[in-house]
Protein backbone atom coordinates (compact mmCIF):
# COMPACT_ATOMS: atom_id res chain seq x y z
CA UNK A 1 0.00 0.00 0.00
CA UNK A 2 1.24 3.47 -0.87
CA UNK A 3 2.08 5.40 2.33
CA UNK A 4 0.07 8.61 2.66
CA UNK A 5 2.51 11.53 3.13
CA UNK A 6 2.41 15.32 3.57
CA UNK A 7 5.22 17.82 3.04
CA UNK A 8 6.13 19.84 6.10
CA UNK A 9 8.51 22.54 7.23
CA UNK A 10 9.99 22.42 10.70
CA UNK A 11 12.78 24.12 12.64
CA UNK A 12 14.65 21.81 15.02
CA UNK A 13 17.40 23.19 17.25
CA UNK A 14 17.68 26.19 14.95
CA UNK A 15 17.95 24.20 11.70
CA UNK A 16 15.15 24.38 9.16
CA UNK A 17 14.01 21.22 7.37
CA UNK A 18 11.53 20.59 4.60
CA UNK A 19 10.49 16.95 4.60
CA UNK A 20 7.94 14.60 3.19
CA UNK A 21 6.53 12.69 6.14
CA UNK A 22 4.00 9.87 6.54
CA UNK A 23 0.84 11.39 8.01
CA UNK A 24 0.67 8.73 10.73
CA UNK A 25 4.27 9.26 11.89
CA UNK A 26 4.62 10.54 15.46
CA UNK A 27 6.80 13.58 16.09
CA UNK A 28 9.07 11.45 18.31
CA UNK A 29 9.66 8.88 15.53
CA UNK A 30 10.17 11.61 12.92
CA UNK A 31 12.94 13.23 14.97
CA UNK A 32 14.65 9.91 15.65
CA UNK A 33 14.28 8.21 12.28
CA UNK A 34 14.11 11.03 9.72
CA UNK A 35 16.44 13.56 11.39
CA UNK A 36 18.66 11.10 13.29
CA UNK A 37 18.09 12.96 16.56
CA UNK A 38 17.98 9.89 18.76
CA UNK A 39 18.39 11.90 21.98
CA UNK A 40 14.61 11.98 22.25
CA UNK A 41 13.68 8.65 23.82
CA UNK A 42 10.50 6.70 23.40
CA UNK A 43 9.17 4.62 26.28
CA UNK A 44 5.43 4.05 26.56
CA UNK A 45 4.10 5.91 23.51
CA UNK A 46 0.91 6.81 25.29
CA UNK A 47 1.85 9.89 27.25
CA UNK A 48 2.56 8.30 30.61
CA UNK A 49 6.35 7.95 31.03
CA UNK A 50 7.61 11.37 29.89
CA UNK A 51 10.73 10.02 28.11
CA UNK A 52 9.76 11.76 24.85
CA UNK A 53 9.21 15.23 26.38
CA UNK A 54 10.61 18.10 24.29
CA UNK A 55 9.87 21.73 23.49
CA UNK A 56 7.45 22.72 20.73
CA UNK A 57 7.05 26.49 20.44
CA UNK A 58 8.42 26.99 23.94
CA UNK A 59 6.23 24.42 25.73
CA UNK A 60 7.52 21.03 26.92
CA UNK A 61 5.06 18.49 25.51
CA UNK A 62 4.86 14.75 24.85
CA UNK A 63 6.20 14.14 21.34
CA UNK A 64 4.60 10.67 21.26
CA UNK A 65 1.14 12.30 21.43
CA UNK A 66 1.63 14.57 18.44
CA UNK A 67 1.82 13.65 14.78
CA UNK A 68 4.91 15.06 13.08
CA UNK A 69 2.85 16.94 10.50
CA UNK A 70 0.99 18.74 13.30
CA UNK A 71 4.34 20.43 14.00
CA UNK A 72 4.37 21.95 10.50
CA UNK A 73 5.82 25.47 10.93
CA UNK A 74 6.82 24.84 14.54
CA UNK A 75 10.04 25.60 16.39
CA UNK A 76 11.26 22.47 18.18
CA UNK A 77 14.07 22.05 20.71
CA UNK A 78 15.32 18.57 21.58
CA UNK A 79 17.94 17.49 24.11
CA UNK A 80 20.56 17.91 21.36
CA UNK A 81 19.74 21.63 21.34
CA UNK A 82 20.59 22.30 25.00
CA UNK A 83 24.35 22.52 24.57
CA UNK A 84 25.54 25.96 23.40
CA UNK A 85 28.95 26.51 21.73
CA UNK A 86 30.34 23.30 23.21
CA UNK A 87 29.15 24.18 26.71
CA UNK A 88 26.66 22.05 28.55
CA UNK A 89 23.43 23.62 29.74
CA UNK A 90 23.35 24.09 33.57
CA UNK A 91 20.69 21.38 33.73
CA UNK A 92 23.06 18.93 32.04
CA UNK A 93 25.93 19.99 34.34
CA UNK A 94 23.76 19.49 37.41
CA UNK A 95 22.55 16.05 36.32
CA UNK A 96 26.16 15.06 35.79
CA UNK A 97 27.31 16.38 39.17
CA UNK A 98 24.39 15.12 41.29
CA UNK A 99 24.14 11.66 39.75
CA UNK A 100 20.79 12.53 38.19
CA UNK A 101 21.10 9.60 35.80
CA UNK A 102 22.13 5.98 35.64
CA UNK A 103 21.09 4.25 32.43
CA UNK A 104 20.07 7.59 30.92
CA UNK A 105 16.87 6.44 29.31
CA UNK A 106 14.57 8.88 31.11
CA UNK A 107 17.17 11.68 31.20
CA UNK A 108 16.38 13.70 28.05
CA UNK A 109 12.69 13.89 28.97
CA UNK A 110 13.56 14.61 32.60
CA UNK A 111 15.76 17.56 31.67
CA UNK A 112 13.22 19.05 29.28
CA UNK A 113 10.45 18.74 31.87
CA UNK A 114 12.76 20.19 34.53
CA UNK A 115 13.69 23.24 32.44
CA UNK A 116 10.01 23.86 31.73
CA UNK A 117 9.09 23.40 35.40
CA UNK A 118 11.74 25.96 36.50
CA UNK A 119 10.31 28.44 34.01
CA UNK A 120 7.10 28.48 36.06
CA UNK A 121 8.80 28.08 39.43
CA UNK A 122 12.40 29.39 39.31
CA UNK A 123 13.04 28.90 43.03
CA UNK A 124 11.24 25.71 44.08
CA UNK A 125 11.23 23.73 47.31
CA UNK A 126 12.16 20.06 47.30
CA UNK A 127 8.50 19.06 47.59
CA UNK A 128 7.58 21.30 44.64
CA UNK A 129 10.29 19.67 42.53
CA UNK A 130 8.95 16.23 43.41
CA UNK A 131 5.44 17.24 42.36
CA UNK A 132 6.59 19.15 39.29
CA UNK A 133 8.64 16.20 38.05
CA UNK A 134 6.03 13.53 38.82
CA UNK A 135 5.07 13.21 35.14
CA UNK A 136 8.42 11.60 34.31
CA UNK A 137 9.23 8.04 35.28
CA UNK A 138 12.73 6.79 36.11
CA UNK A 139 13.46 3.11 36.61
CA UNK A 140 16.99 3.50 37.99
CA UNK A 141 17.84 6.40 40.25
CA UNK A 142 15.15 6.32 42.89
CA UNK A 143 14.65 10.01 41.96
CA UNK A 144 16.87 11.41 44.73
CA UNK A 145 19.65 12.38 42.32
CA UNK A 146 17.13 13.86 39.91
CA UNK A 147 15.51 16.05 42.56
CA UNK A 148 18.98 17.19 43.73
CA UNK A 149 19.96 17.98 40.13
CA UNK A 150 16.90 20.17 39.56
CA UNK A 151 17.42 21.99 42.87
CA UNK A 152 21.05 22.61 41.96
CA UNK A 153 20.22 23.80 38.46
CA UNK A 154 17.55 26.27 39.60
CA UNK A 155 19.80 29.16 40.76
CA UNK A 156 22.26 28.53 37.90
CA UNK A 157 19.49 28.88 35.32
CA UNK A 158 18.09 31.97 37.03
CA UNK A 159 21.54 33.58 36.72
CA UNK A 160 21.89 32.82 32.99
CA UNK A 161 21.66 35.81 30.71
CA UNK A 162 18.33 35.73 28.94
CA UNK A 163 19.97 35.28 25.56
CA UNK A 164 21.75 32.11 26.57
CA UNK A 165 18.70 30.58 28.24
CA UNK A 166 17.09 27.95 26.10
CA UNK A 167 13.70 29.51 26.87
Amino acid at each position, binding site marked *: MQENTHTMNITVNGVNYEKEVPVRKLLSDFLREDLGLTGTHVGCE*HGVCGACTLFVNGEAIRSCLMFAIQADGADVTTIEGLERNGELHPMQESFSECHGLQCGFCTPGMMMAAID*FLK*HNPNPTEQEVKEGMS*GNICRCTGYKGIVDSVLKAAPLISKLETKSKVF
Partner: protein
Amino acid sequence: MKPSSFEMYTPNNIEDALSLLDKHGDEAKIITGGQSLVPTINMRLATPKSLIDLNRIDGLRYIKKEDNKILIGGVTRHHDLETSSLIKEHCPLLGLAAGCIGHLAIRYRGTIGGSLAHADPAATLPVALLTLDGKVKTTSVNGVREFDAEEFFYGIFTTAMEENEILTEVEIPIVPKEAGYSFSTLTRIHGDFPLLAVGVLMEVEEEKIVKARLTVGGINPLTERIVDVEEMLIGKKPSDELFYEAAQSSKDFMEPESDISASAEYRLHMVGVYVEEALKNAWQNIGKVGN
Protein backbone atom coordinates in the same frame (compact mmCIF):
# COMPACT_ATOMS: atom_id res chain seq x y z
CA MET B 1 4.80 3.08 12.89
CA LYS B 2 2.24 2.34 15.52
CA PRO B 3 -0.90 4.07 14.16
CA SER B 4 -2.73 2.65 11.18
CA SER B 5 -2.94 4.79 8.06
CA PHE B 6 -5.23 7.81 7.94
CA GLU B 7 -5.67 11.17 6.23
CA MET B 8 -5.26 14.41 8.20
CA TYR B 9 -7.21 17.57 7.42
CA THR B 10 -6.22 20.93 8.89
CA PRO B 11 -9.08 23.34 8.21
CA ASN B 12 -8.47 27.04 8.90
CA ASN B 13 -12.05 27.87 9.79
CA ILE B 14 -14.95 26.25 11.57
CA GLU B 15 -17.16 26.08 8.45
CA ASP B 16 -14.60 23.93 6.61
CA ALA B 17 -14.15 21.74 9.69
CA LEU B 18 -17.90 21.19 9.96
CA SER B 19 -18.38 20.28 6.32
CA LEU B 20 -15.38 17.89 6.43
CA LEU B 21 -16.84 16.25 9.50
CA ASP B 22 -20.26 15.98 7.89
CA LYS B 23 -18.79 14.54 4.70
CA HIS B 24 -16.63 11.89 6.35
CA GLY B 25 -19.22 10.85 8.94
CA ASP B 26 -18.24 8.17 11.40
CA GLU B 27 -14.95 7.46 9.58
CA ALA B 28 -13.58 10.81 10.80
CA LYS B 29 -12.48 11.98 14.23
CA ILE B 30 -11.79 15.43 15.56
CA ILE B 31 -8.33 15.90 17.08
CA THR B 32 -7.53 18.79 19.41
CA GLY B 33 -5.05 18.10 22.24
CA GLY B 34 -4.60 14.48 21.22
CA GLN B 35 -3.93 13.58 24.87
CA SER B 36 -6.67 10.95 24.96
CA LEU B 37 -7.10 10.20 21.26
CA VAL B 38 -3.47 9.61 20.24
CA PRO B 39 -2.83 6.93 22.92
CA THR B 40 -5.85 5.00 21.59
CA ILE B 41 -4.61 5.45 18.01
CA ASN B 42 -1.10 4.34 18.99
CA MET B 43 -2.57 1.20 20.54
CA ARG B 44 -4.87 0.78 17.52
CA LEU B 45 -7.90 0.79 19.78
CA ALA B 46 -9.05 3.53 17.40
CA THR B 47 -8.36 3.35 13.66
CA PRO B 48 -10.04 6.43 12.18
CA LYS B 49 -9.79 6.87 8.41
CA SER B 50 -9.53 10.66 8.77
CA LEU B 51 -8.52 13.09 11.45
CA ILE B 52 -9.75 16.67 11.41
CA ASP B 53 -7.30 18.85 13.33
CA LEU B 54 -8.92 21.93 14.92
CA ASN B 55 -5.62 23.39 16.15
CA ARG B 56 -5.20 25.75 13.17
CA ILE B 57 -8.60 27.40 13.57
CA ASP B 58 -8.40 30.87 15.09
CA GLY B 59 -11.17 31.83 17.43
CA LEU B 60 -11.82 28.55 19.24
CA ARG B 61 -9.36 29.28 22.06
CA TYR B 62 -10.64 32.03 24.37
CA ILE B 63 -11.85 32.82 27.88
CA LYS B 64 -14.09 35.87 28.13
CA LYS B 65 -16.72 37.44 30.37
CA GLU B 66 -20.11 38.32 28.99
CA ASP B 67 -22.81 39.62 31.37
CA ASN B 68 -22.93 37.10 34.21
CA LYS B 69 -21.21 34.30 32.31
CA ILE B 70 -17.72 33.12 31.50
CA LEU B 71 -17.49 31.82 27.93
CA ILE B 72 -14.74 29.39 27.00
CA GLY B 73 -13.83 28.28 23.47
CA GLY B 74 -13.82 24.52 22.78
CA VAL B 75 -10.10 24.40 21.99
CA THR B 76 -9.02 26.27 25.15
CA ARG B 77 -6.18 24.37 26.86
CA HIS B 78 -6.25 23.05 30.43
CA HIS B 79 -3.22 25.26 31.10
CA ASP B 80 -5.18 28.34 29.92
CA LEU B 81 -7.93 27.49 32.41
CA GLU B 82 -5.59 26.98 35.36
CA THR B 83 -3.77 30.27 34.74
CA SER B 84 -6.71 32.51 33.72
CA SER B 85 -7.33 35.48 36.01
CA LEU B 86 -10.97 35.68 34.84
CA ILE B 87 -11.53 32.10 35.96
CA LYS B 88 -9.69 32.66 39.22
CA GLU B 89 -11.94 35.63 39.93
CA HIS B 90 -15.32 34.28 38.81
CA CYS B 91 -15.27 30.47 38.92
CA PRO B 92 -12.05 29.35 40.63
CA LEU B 93 -13.30 25.78 40.99
CA LEU B 94 -12.85 25.29 37.23
CA GLY B 95 -9.22 26.42 37.41
CA LEU B 96 -8.55 23.97 40.24
CA ALA B 97 -10.14 21.12 38.28
CA ALA B 98 -8.02 21.93 35.20
CA GLY B 99 -4.83 22.35 37.24
CA CYS B 100 -4.93 18.79 38.59
CA ILE B 101 -5.21 17.13 35.17
CA GLY B 102 -2.15 14.92 34.61
CA HIS B 103 1.03 16.92 34.27
CA LEU B 104 2.01 20.28 32.77
CA ALA B 105 3.03 18.60 29.49
CA ILE B 106 -0.51 17.18 29.21
CA ARG B 107 -2.20 20.47 30.23
CA TYR B 108 -0.39 22.51 27.55
CA ARG B 109 -2.08 20.42 24.85
CA GLY B 110 -5.29 18.95 26.31
CA THR B 111 -8.45 21.00 25.77
CA ILE B 112 -11.73 21.55 27.61
CA GLY B 113 -13.70 20.44 24.54
CA GLY B 114 -11.64 17.27 24.21
CA SER B 115 -12.02 16.35 27.86
CA LEU B 116 -15.81 16.91 27.92
CA ALA B 117 -16.40 15.20 24.55
CA HIS B 118 -14.26 12.26 25.65
CA ALA B 119 -16.35 11.86 28.86
CA ASP B 120 -13.93 9.71 30.82
CA PRO B 121 -15.69 8.80 34.09
CA ALA B 122 -12.52 9.70 36.01
CA ALA B 123 -12.01 13.08 34.29
CA THR B 124 -12.08 16.20 36.42
CA LEU B 125 -13.63 18.81 34.11
CA PRO B 126 -17.04 17.08 33.98
CA VAL B 127 -17.14 17.33 37.80
CA ALA B 128 -16.49 21.07 37.53
CA LEU B 129 -19.04 21.57 34.75
CA LEU B 130 -21.79 19.83 36.75
CA THR B 131 -20.97 21.56 40.03
CA LEU B 132 -20.83 24.99 38.40
CA ASP B 133 -24.10 24.46 36.49
CA GLY B 134 -22.32 24.97 33.16
CA LYS B 135 -23.61 24.56 29.63
CA VAL B 136 -22.06 23.00 26.55
CA LYS B 137 -22.58 24.33 23.02
CA THR B 138 -22.10 22.08 20.01
CA THR B 139 -22.08 23.09 16.37
CA SER B 140 -22.72 21.12 13.19
CA VAL B 141 -23.69 21.95 9.61
CA ASN B 142 -27.27 21.91 10.93
CA GLY B 143 -26.66 24.64 13.50
CA VAL B 144 -25.94 25.10 17.19
CA ARG B 145 -27.28 23.01 20.07
CA GLU B 146 -26.99 23.80 23.75
CA PHE B 147 -26.98 21.31 26.62
CA ASP B 148 -27.17 21.69 30.37
CA ALA B 149 -24.37 19.74 32.03
CA GLU B 150 -26.91 17.18 33.28
CA GLU B 151 -28.14 16.48 29.75
CA PHE B 152 -24.71 16.20 28.18
CA PHE B 153 -23.08 13.12 29.75
CA TYR B 154 -24.62 9.71 29.06
CA GLY B 155 -22.04 7.29 30.49
CA ILE B 156 -18.53 5.95 29.93
CA PHE B 157 -17.11 7.79 26.89
CA THR B 158 -20.62 8.70 25.69
CA THR B 159 -22.32 12.07 25.45
CA ALA B 160 -25.35 13.65 23.79
CA MET B 161 -23.20 14.77 20.83
CA GLU B 162 -23.83 13.53 17.30
CA GLU B 163 -20.93 12.38 15.12
CA ASN B 164 -21.08 15.53 12.96
CA GLU B 165 -20.88 17.95 15.89
CA ILE B 166 -17.97 19.93 17.32
CA LEU B 167 -17.95 21.10 20.92
CA THR B 168 -17.45 24.80 20.28
CA GLU B 169 -18.14 26.58 23.58
CA VAL B 170 -18.56 26.06 27.30
CA GLU B 171 -20.56 28.52 29.37
CA ILE B 172 -20.07 28.87 33.13
CA PRO B 173 -22.32 31.16 35.18
CA ILE B 174 -20.33 33.53 37.38
CA VAL B 175 -20.21 32.24 40.94
CA PRO B 176 -21.59 34.84 43.36
CA LYS B 177 -19.06 36.35 45.76
CA GLU B 178 -20.99 35.03 48.75
CA ALA B 179 -20.71 31.39 47.64
CA GLY B 180 -18.26 28.84 49.04
CA TYR B 181 -16.63 26.15 46.95
CA SER B 182 -14.32 23.18 47.12
CA PHE B 183 -12.64 20.91 44.62
CA SER B 184 -10.49 17.94 45.61
CA THR B 185 -9.12 14.74 44.13
CA LEU B 186 -7.76 11.52 45.55
CA THR B 187 -4.82 10.16 43.54
CA ARG B 188 -2.32 7.43 44.26
CA ILE B 189 0.49 9.37 42.59
CA HIS B 190 0.59 13.13 41.98
CA GLY B 191 -0.85 13.76 38.50
CA ASP B 192 -2.53 10.38 38.05
CA PHE B 193 -6.15 10.08 36.97
CA PRO B 194 -8.06 10.50 40.25
CA LEU B 195 -9.70 7.58 42.09
CA LEU B 196 -12.18 10.17 43.27
CA ALA B 197 -12.98 13.82 42.44
CA VAL B 198 -15.38 15.92 44.50
CA GLY B 199 -16.82 19.34 43.67
CA VAL B 200 -19.00 21.44 46.00
CA LEU B 201 -20.68 24.82 45.64
CA MET B 202 -22.60 26.24 48.58
CA GLU B 203 -24.53 29.39 49.45
CA VAL B 204 -25.65 30.29 52.95
CA GLU B 205 -28.17 32.98 53.92
CA GLU B 206 -29.18 33.86 57.45
CA GLU B 207 -27.27 30.85 58.74
CA LYS B 208 -29.11 28.42 56.48
CA ILE B 209 -27.83 26.62 53.41
CA VAL B 210 -29.87 27.96 50.48
CA LYS B 211 -27.94 26.37 47.65
CA ALA B 212 -25.82 23.24 47.54
CA ARG B 213 -24.32 21.44 44.57
CA LEU B 214 -22.33 18.26 45.09
CA THR B 215 -20.70 16.16 42.37
CA VAL B 216 -18.64 13.01 42.78
CA GLY B 217 -16.57 11.70 39.86
CA GLY B 218 -14.33 8.69 39.41
CA ILE B 219 -16.56 6.08 41.05
CA ASN B 220 -19.71 5.56 38.98
CA PRO B 221 -19.69 5.05 35.18
CA LEU B 222 -21.61 8.31 34.90
CA THR B 223 -20.39 11.38 36.79
CA GLU B 224 -23.47 12.99 38.35
CA ARG B 225 -24.55 15.42 41.05
CA ILE B 226 -25.93 13.73 44.15
CA VAL B 227 -29.22 15.60 44.17
CA ASP B 228 -30.70 13.72 47.12
CA VAL B 229 -27.83 14.79 49.35
CA GLU B 230 -28.01 18.36 48.07
CA GLU B 231 -31.69 18.42 49.10
CA MET B 232 -30.80 17.04 52.49
CA LEU B 233 -28.51 20.05 53.05
CA ILE B 234 -30.83 22.80 51.87
CA GLY B 235 -32.66 24.72 54.60
CA LYS B 236 -30.31 23.40 57.30
CA LYS B 237 -27.80 25.24 59.43
CA PRO B 238 -24.23 24.27 58.48
CA SER B 239 -22.61 22.10 61.14
CA ASP B 240 -20.02 19.34 61.38
CA GLU B 241 -22.78 16.83 62.22
CA LEU B 242 -24.79 17.78 59.15
CA PHE B 243 -21.77 17.46 56.87
CA TYR B 244 -20.86 14.10 58.39
CA GLU B 245 -24.39 12.77 57.82
CA ALA B 246 -24.50 14.12 54.28
CA ALA B 247 -21.14 12.52 53.50
CA GLN B 248 -22.26 9.16 54.86
CA SER B 249 -25.49 9.36 52.82
CA SER B 250 -23.46 10.10 49.68
CA LYS B 251 -22.07 6.60 49.89
CA ASP B 252 -25.56 5.15 49.21
CA PHE B 253 -25.35 6.56 45.68
CA MET B 254 -21.96 5.09 44.83
CA GLU B 255 -21.22 1.76 43.18
CA PRO B 256 -17.45 1.39 43.44
CA GLU B 257 -15.55 -1.53 41.97
CA SER B 258 -12.28 -3.10 43.01
CA ASP B 259 -9.31 -3.00 40.67
CA ILE B 260 -5.52 -2.93 40.77
CA SER B 261 -5.50 0.67 42.13
CA ALA B 262 -7.89 0.29 45.05
CA SER B 263 -10.57 -1.93 46.57
CA ALA B 264 -14.26 -1.08 46.43
CA GLU B 265 -14.32 -0.77 50.26
CA TYR B 266 -11.49 1.76 50.25
CA ARG B 267 -13.12 3.83 47.52
CA LEU B 268 -16.44 3.89 49.33
CA HIS B 269 -14.80 4.84 52.61
CA MET B 270 -12.93 7.67 50.90
CA VAL B 271 -16.15 9.03 49.37
CA GLY B 272 -17.30 9.63 52.95
CA VAL B 273 -14.00 11.23 53.96
CA TYR B 274 -13.70 13.44 50.89
CA VAL B 275 -17.32 14.61 50.73
CA GLU B 276 -17.22 15.58 54.41
CA GLU B 277 -13.98 17.53 53.91
CA ALA B 278 -15.31 19.16 50.76
CA LEU B 279 -18.51 20.35 52.46
CA LYS B 280 -16.53 21.74 55.40
CA ASN B 281 -14.06 23.49 53.12
CA ALA B 282 -16.83 25.01 51.01
CA TRP B 283 -18.53 26.35 54.13
CA GLN B 284 -15.29 27.72 55.53
CA ASN B 285 -14.37 29.61 52.41
CA ILE B 286 -17.78 31.18 51.91
CA GLY B 287 -17.36 34.73 50.64
CA LYS B 288 -13.83 34.11 49.42
CA VAL B 289 -14.53 33.64 45.69
CA GLY B 290 -12.11 35.83 43.76
CA ASN B 291 -9.86 36.50 46.76
